[in-house]
């Protein structure tokens, strides 16, 4: 593992956890909240959070 990977890992992991927990808190309690016809779960929200974070960080790092 490179120093950069080591530096970035806690930031990305914490961000994924934070997004997942807030999303579950905010929209997970909504009975109508579904993605692809499935109710949101802890694992599905992490997948979505990572994909969404990936997109945003990719855009952000494009000009870094």
């Amino acid at each position, binding site marked *: *593992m*490179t*120093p*950069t*990977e*080591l*530096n*970035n*890992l*806690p*930031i*990305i*992991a*914490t*961000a*994924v*956890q*934070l*997004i*997942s*927990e*807030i*999303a579950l*808190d*905010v*929209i997970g309690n*909504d009975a*109508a*909240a*579904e*993605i*692809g016809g499935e109710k*949101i779960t*802890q*694992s599905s*929200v*992490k*997948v*979505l*959070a*990572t994909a*969404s*974070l*990936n997109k*945003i*960080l*990719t855009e*952000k*790092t494009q000009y*870094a």
Partner: protein
Amino acid sequence: MLDPNAVTAAIALNQSISAKGIHLVALPDTALALLVREMPTNTINAGETDYAAASQILVDLSRGEAHAEVLHRVRSLSSDSVRRTLSFARNTVMPHVYRVVEEYTKVMDENKNVPMPFDIERYFRHDAVKTNVARDFLERWENAPAVTPANNLNLGQYEPAEILDLVKISDDGDYNEQIAELLNADGGKGLNDLIQVLKGTLDITALDNNYQLAAAVLLHAISTKPKAGVAMTLSAYTAGVNSMANYAAKNALKSRNRLENERTTQTLYHGILRNDVKVISVVGEVYNDLLEKGFTVDMLFGNELLGRKYHGAELLLPENMKHMQSTYEFDRVTRQEAHNLDRQRMSRKAILDVLRNDQKAVAESGEFPVADDSADRSWQRLKGFIDSITSNNAWHFYEPSTLIAATICAVWYAHCDAHRIIDNMFELEKTHKGTPPSELSTLASLKYITEWTAAQIGVGKFSEGSVNELIGLQA
């Protein structure tokens, strides 16, 4: 405690970002920085550690009470804040935006179809005119010398029932029924017009051709029987009424003969071609007959555009039908293009109109979403936002609804983050066609939470050496 599943989910993303030499920083004084601070990585030797080991170390570092407490506090505060923003976006901003978008859609829907190049007016001989008694009655006037009809004669006040009785000819049931039906049609327009003629408020020459037969029969019936109170001598009355009856009968006769002639000679057009024609008048019976034989409305329009090149049997020749059809098609495509340009212009105007109307309506209601706002200040914001759109940034508003949403958020809701959720909704609507609105709303909320979190991350590009230095390791 850091969730091991979150670490696992983060690995692929971390590898791809780190491979580009991108160094992330949790920005100071953010929730993310508080949590990351609880997991100092400067004691880990990156070169001697793999992902599994590093993950375990990070999880272990975050087991302390401090991390749990910060996580609980951050989660609670953030959730409340995001929940309030979402609720405001869903319950206040979105309905406002959709209301204005709906107004815009309504305006555009009203002008959706390409207007037809012409209207068609079909002339039919009324059944009453076709009866034998009507023909016999009118033919009596055929050789009578034409006279100038009297006008503005007040022949007295007649009731509809009296008129219906006076327009009867002998005991012919068919004619009597048909003439009554004609005069009662269109809310009794014929009856009303005849009453006006008798009162002297409608000139006989201005009476619709359809009612000239009835007028002739009526005037003939009263020509020797003036109503009590009519202020003229009997001879003046009779001469005046007869002149009107003469005009009406001759006119009805002329109209009947023309339609009869057009029908027997299979003449399609009723009236002559004019350059500025917007209405094509056709002989109803001939036109219907042609339609049954394969002629179409498009061909009628095509022939009009060709200056009525084809007549009679020529209208049904296959090569002529093709010519008329292709002429119309060419015209239709040209008009479609012009219409599209018109719609673009209309769209811009409609957007500005609905936004202006919305600003006025909010100002008039006095219920401003922004504290201490006024009609003038909100108008300046609207004007300012519209003026700020240039060819350089207009691409962002790829659809009118996006522009409307962005403007409403800028004018009324710039004080909160709701516009970011609305932007997400419109963007997702475009990329997730057919997805139910409730799911779009969930995805938009998730994207907003991610953006909120990602805003706490700074990015930079460093060499490995400088990273080591930054995180306190020996190169």
